């Protein structure tokens, strides 16, 4: 044996050796299984009359549905913006050395994470029952008062509820991001004498964003879907509107699919936004940014053997 191998080695020079890639038969078997299951599922979608795709198409871009989609987007946008605006002071307060601020922030987060969103929304909608008038003025002194029912519409109550709920979560997400920034960065900024506010938004926040973004995107997607809960306040958002339509026509499944497909499309849009925002804040965090899926695709197409064959 030894004699034979030495002989062989003598015959073939190192640069003539050919690498044979390892084979993965189980990978192929697994892929085949998944493809079969997927094909079955797609076949079912196409052939089962219960999906009723013609009704689906009829309502997908129907005026009332598109308007309701607008309300869903408004609720999501307002809830997210107000929620994150509320989250910033909550995070700052919890990180503050002042015990009063820190405890108040902790208590707020505790309460608003404890109470289910649905219950909260019902509370806000019934605020007029608890406080008939809202007053602005000197604490415990004179001021102007307004009837609560005039101030808080059901849409207002929904936005208020979503925003207060989001703020509790956003506060924790922002705090986690701020904590993830290396202490040395704070020290370096302080040692250079950079003004406090600028230390925050120029040095600390951009680095915290790397930890904040994936969680914030999660929260945002969750909020998008949570807006469907406000149907209890009879607000004409996507889910409510779809329910109204199938209440009349009785075609439940295709109309639920209308809502589902819209939620999926919006989530896809948010995910793409998330990808590119994360990429933006990855500056300097990795030596070289990996290619985007689009860049990968074009590179793959350029290198694909099929395409080469066609080009020839």
């Amino acid at each position: 044996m030894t004699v034979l191998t030495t002989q062989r080695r003598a015959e073939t020079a190192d640069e003539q050796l050919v690498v044979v890639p390892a084979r993965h038969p189980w990978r192929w078997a697994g892929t085949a299984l998944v493809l079969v299951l997927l094909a079955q599922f797609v076949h079912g979608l196409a052939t089962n009359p219960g999906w009723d795709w013609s009704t689906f198409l009829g309502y997908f871009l129907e005026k009332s549905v598109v308007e309701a989609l607008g309300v869903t987007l408004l609720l999501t946008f307002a809830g997210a913006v107000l929620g994150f605006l509320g989250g910033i002071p909550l995070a700052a307060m919890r990180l503050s050395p002042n015990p009063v601020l820190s405890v108040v922030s902790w208590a707020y987060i505790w309460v608003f994470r404890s109470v289910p969103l649905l219950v909260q929304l019902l509370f806000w909608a019934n605020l007029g029952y608890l406080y008939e008038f809202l007053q602005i003025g000197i604490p415990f002194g004179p001021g102007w008062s307004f009837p609560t029912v005039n101030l808080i519409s059901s849409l207002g109550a929904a936005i208020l509820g979503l925003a207060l709920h989001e703020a509790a979560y956003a506060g924790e997400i922002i705090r986690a991001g701020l904590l993830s920034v290396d202490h040395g960065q704070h020290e370096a900024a302080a040692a250079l004498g950079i003004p406090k506010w600028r230390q925050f938004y120029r040095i600390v926040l951009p680095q915290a964003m790397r930890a904040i973004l994936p969680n914030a995107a999660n929260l945002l997607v969750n909020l998008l879907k949570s807006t469907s809960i406000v149907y209890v306040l009879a607000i004409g958002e996507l889910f409510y509107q779809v329910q109204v339509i199938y209440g009349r026509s009785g075609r439940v499944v295709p109309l639920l699919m209308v809502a589902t497909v819209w939620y999926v499309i919006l989530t896809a849009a948010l995910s793409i936004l998330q990808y590119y925002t994360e990429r933006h804040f990855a500056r300097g965090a990795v030596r070289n940014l990996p290619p985007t899926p689009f860049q990968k695709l074009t590179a793959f197409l350029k290198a694909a053997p099929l395409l080469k064959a066609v080009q020839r």
Partner: protein
Amino acid sequence: MIEISGVHKTFGTTEVLRGIDLTAAAGTVTVVLGPSGSGKSTLLRCINHLEKVDSGLVRVDGELIGYRQSGTRLHELSERQILKQRAGIGFVFQNFNLFPHLTALENITEAPISAQGKPKRLVYDRAHELLTRVGLGDRAHAYPRQLSGGQQQRVAIARALALDPKLILFDEPTSALDPELVGEVLDVLRDLAATGVTMIVVTHEIGFAREAADTVVFMDSGRIVEQGTPAEVLDNPQHERTRAFLSAVLV
């Protein structure tokens, strides 16, 4: 001119500084030596008020750091005023602490613009000049992670210089570097020393102390054990503790 008198600092129950008195004239290089845990770094951090002293005073060019004196009272300065004082004192960290999301150039220009309000054009020109001076003229737009440790530390030194400080503090500037990168940073320090920048350097590089220092200070367990010219302290140490340390380091 830096005057430190009677500085004490305690962390929890550990007394890290037990009465430090030290003066350094403008344009001189002071090298602080001592075993780890002797309080060297804490002393540096007290000079620019990154740590608040428990008692004692620090003056830089006659200006009290962290306090304002009126009669017999010392008023604590506001955060804003302390930041202003710090901008006049450079600090170079052991771990560089460059801002990873900013390029080398942006790291240098940030503080002169935002802390000192200098005009942008001037700051950028000066930043390029400083990068060239530390041998990195061609790496202005590189991010810190694209630079070697030695290069990062040189950017950090340029960042400190950009504020035109009265004094630069170096906290073990070469301790986090691979041995072959130490030389390039020490070259920059030697160059600075030669041009009359006031420096206080905490280091374990005895060779650098011998060549570049005007004064060598030896610290142990929160006290200055002895100080003098490099020849006095390094070649003819008076204290047993200094002798033991030097023989351990010079092996």
